[in-house]
Structure formats: structure tokens, C-alpha cells
């Protein structure tokens, strides 16, 4: 695997920008402030990990970027084209085969039929599921399903990929393999990625940058650049060391919070 410095790549992809974004759910006494004045900028081609304790509004932030929800105040913008989203669950359509799921994403953006089949095959190969196109989601393992979901997200040919704890439900070994694959895929495609996780090591393993959010309401409290060379290993010393620093910062925040 080649070592790539993504930020040195030309800024042709999409970027994400949040300026003073707040989000309040509900009204009056029962109102919950999920995000408070969050400003964040993700450069084209950058892999940014968002980390924080549960309830810090990480998922809300992704939904805002995805346009699934509107901010109460502030501005969210994504330059460039479509935004793809990967959820913690694969969210595959059970009535379609693996290939059918990927193909539907191509169809949704109007790719012609003949091309669809070929592209589907390529995408499944990209996620190392070459021979599994005819399988239905329930016939695949959890890791394989998440790969199909990744292939489906890639099928959108989006510049920005939002990932909401996509490997949270997988075992450590499978997650490790998928980390490598995600690295490889992002390096080849110049994707801008916003990756939400509560696993500090995963964040350091994957990200060019790790953004730490506070809880209730979510605020950006720290940012860490990850200068570790790729390929990285989740159990390597530099990853562990930086993860330690991030964890300390998180602990500090949580003790202040009392949670």
C-alpha cells in the first residue's frame, strides 16, 4: 500500500463547512440542545474523525451535513456534488441481492443499464466481494454486509462520505480489515470523509484529524492532527500514544461534565 498524504492532493473534491451551527430538538422546557455553536471545516480529500461521549450530538452533526435535518441556527454547506452516508447498521434492502443494492444506488443517479452491471461488479470487487453479488443480505456476515453498504455508498460517486460509527457493531478483527480497506479506497478516490466514532483508537487509526466534541450540548473542544504515516496499525505505538492524549482530553471533559 502506498503512503499517501491526502492533504497534498489537489482540492478538487467536495469539502464540508459548518459555521456556528446549533441544533435544538423540541421546544420550551423539554428542549434539548444537541449542538452549540459548532464550527468545523473539512478540507477536500481530508479524513476527519469526530469523537465524543454518547449524547454529544455526533450523529446529529452528520444528519445536518447530510441534509436529513436542518440546523436551528448557523450554516452548513458542502461544496461539490452528492453526499453519501453510511450508517452503523448496513441498512441494506432485504428484498434485493448484494448486487441489487449497489445497483439501485447507481440507478438512482441515472446510470444506464448496461453500465450499471459493470460498475456494480467493479464496486463489489473494490470491497472484496467479487463473487457475492447474488447473495442476499441475510446470507452475508456482518462485516460483509457493511462492505456492501460501503460499495453502495461508493456507487453514489459522492465527493463527501459521511460515516456514522459504521464499524461499531463489528468484531475487532473484521473492523481491522475494514480499516485497511477504507484506507485504500479513500486513497484512490480522493474522498472527503467525516467519520463519527466513540472508539478513540479507531479515530486515530483512520483520521488525518481527530475532532473532539463535548457532551450536552455538543461543542468542539479540541482538535488533534494525526501526523502518523500510513499505513497505520491500530495497535502500533504512535497510534496508541496519540489515542492516549485524546482519551485524556475526553476524560477531562467528562469529569467536568459529571457524566
Amino acid at each position: 500500500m502506498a503512503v499517501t498524504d491526502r492533504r497534498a492532493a489537489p482540492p478538487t473534491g467536495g469539502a464540508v463547512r459548518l459555521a456556528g451551527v446549533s441544533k435544538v430538538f423540541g421546544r420550551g422546557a423539554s428542549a434539548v440542545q444537541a449542538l452549540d455553536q459548532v464550527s468545523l471545516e473539512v478540507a477536500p480529500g481530508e479524513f476527519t474523525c469526530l469523537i465524543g461521549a454518547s449524547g454529544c450530538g455526533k450523529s446529529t452533526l452528520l444528519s445536518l451535513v447530510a441534509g436529513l435535518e436542518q440546523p436551528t441556527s448557523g450554516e452548513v454547506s458542502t461544496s461539490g456534488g452528492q453526499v453519501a452516508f453510511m450508517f452503523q447498521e448496513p441498512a441494506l434492502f432485504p428484498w434485493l441481492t448484494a448486487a441489487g443494492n449497489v445497483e439501485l444506488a447507481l440507478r438512482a443517479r441515472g446510470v444506464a443499464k448496461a453500465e450499471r452491471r459493470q460498475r456494480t461488479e467493479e464496486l463489489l470487487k473494490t470491497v472484496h466481494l467479487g463473487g457475492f453479488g447474488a447473495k442476499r443480505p441475510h446470507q452475508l456476515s456482518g462485516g460483509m454486509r457493511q462492505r456492501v453498504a460501503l460499495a453502495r455508498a461508493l456507487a453514489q460517486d459522492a465527493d463527501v462520505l459521511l460515516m456514522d460509527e459504521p464499524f461499531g457493531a463489528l468484531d475487532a478483527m473484521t473492523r481491522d480489515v475494514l480499516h485497511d480497506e477504507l484506507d485504500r479506497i479513500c486513497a484512490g478516490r480522493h474522498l472527503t470523509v467525516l467519520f463519527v466514532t466513540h472508539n478513540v483508537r479507531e479515530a486515530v487509526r483512520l483520521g488525518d484529524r481527530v475532532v473532539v466534541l463535548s457532551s450536552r450540548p455538543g461543542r468542539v473542544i479540541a482538535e488533534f492532527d494525526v501526523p502518523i504515516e500510513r499505513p497505520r496499525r491500530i495497535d502500533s505505538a504512535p497510534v496508541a500514544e496519540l489515542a492516549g492524549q485524546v482519551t485524556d482530553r475526553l476524560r477531562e471533559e467528562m469529569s467536568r461534565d459529571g457524566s
Partner: protein
Amino acid sequence: MAVNNRAKYEEKLAWLESLEAPSPEELRGRRLATRAWAGAWPVLLAIAIVLAVWELIHLSGWKKDIFPGPGATLANLWDQLHTGLLWYAIATTAERAVIGFGLAVLIGGVIGALVSRIRPLRAAVGSLITGLQTMPSIAWFPFAIILFGISTTAILFVIILGAAPSIANGLIAGVDYTPPLLLKAGTMMGLRRFSLWRFLILPASLPAFVAGLKQGWAFAWRSLMAGELLVVIANQPSLGVLLSTDQDQSDMQSATAIIIVILIIGIIVDQLFGLADRGIRRRWGLAGNS
């Protein structure tokens, strides 16, 4: 000659091999046979028990003059199966069932689709549909007969009123229970309005829709039987007409034979819906073993 020998040799080899290992087709055949037997024996046993109890009641002498035993009834059924009249009646009834149920699927489907998508419409007629569902369809016959006279239309009208609400409700339930996560995934994929409906909501509603169809069929079949007994159209023998004639002539053997025919048709159609339901479950991975 040599070619011929070789061909023979290969044929023999293939035969020998076939002795050793069952072909996949054979295995599948055997498995199918085992499964068919596993499904069949409880049914056969149940039938045997029913026949035995029936025979015992007959032997006990209860209402001896009018209550026929299974032997005489089945003999009567056997005879009727060799006359054109029963088959003609079955054809008439089946035709009404197909047309009535087909129209119910069409109307129920369209209403279900509209109600599930248009919010004010849901508020207006949502509970009305459920109300209609609980209405005994036989209560509609006076209304239908006054409106359409003694005609097939009256029967079809009641079938539709009986079946369409269940079918509409099935579809509405299916749309309502489309998992929100899948909706999110579909939206992110770029599916909008019609395509979201066509590629996501409709297929996601399929299991609930099939359940609605199955329930709708049960209502349609009941309405049809009630209709054929109430709306007796001259020169158009149907199962209901045969039953009604038997009643007039106090022909208990024939009446029981016709009841058995009605029961069997109901069971067969129900099995077909069960088959469709299981097929979907297997495809979706909802079945226990797949």
C-alpha cells in the same frame, strides 16, 4: 465402432457414478419428498381423526335419518365429481371469486396507496377503512340487491366491500412500518418521491401487503358464499346455488359434499398465500432456516 464403444463405456461409467453418489437433483428430490411428507402427515392424521369422529357419530345413531356418514357423503361427492353440474358450479364460483378478488386488490391497492401517502386523506378515511373491515359483509346484501338487483354485480359489490378494506389496510400498515433507517438510506441514495415509492416503500411493504391479501381473500370467499346463497340467479348454477337447492330438497348428503368442496377450495387458496408468504420470508432472511 471404437467411438460407439467409448460412448457405451462412458455411459456405463456415468451409471456407476450415479449409483455411488446421488445427483444434486436427486438429493433435492429426496429432500422435497421428506419435507412434503413432514408437512403432509399431520394433515392426513387430522383428516383421519375427523372422519373417524364423524363415522362414530353416524354409528351412534344420532339423527339417523338425516345425518349421513362419511362413506355415503364421500360416495355422493365422488358421483357429483363425475357430473358436469358440480364442475360448472365450481367454475362459476371460481370466476366470481377471481373477478371479485381481483377488483378488490385493484381498488384496495389504489386506496391503500393514496391513503398511506396523503395525510389529510388518512385522517379522513383511515378509521373508516378499519370500520369497514369489521363490518359483516352479509349486512351489505340488502343494500347491494336493492342497488343492483339479483345479479352477479351485487355479489361482486359485496366481495369488494368485504375484501378491499383488508387489502388497503395491509398496504397502509406496510408503508407505515417501512423501517426509518431504510428510508434514510434511500433518501441519501437520491431516491425521491416516485422512485422512493417504487424502489423502497412498495417492496418494503410487500410482506404486510401479502398478509392483507390473505385476510382479504378470507373475507372475499365468505362474502361470495353468503352472496351465492342469498342472490340465487336462475340458470347460473354456482356452489351456493347447489347448496341452496340441496337445502330445498333436504339432500343432506349432497349438501355436505358441497361443503367439503368449499372447504377444500378455501384451504388450497390459503395454502397458496402461505406459499407466497414463506417465499418472501425466505428471500428476506426472516424465516428460521434459509
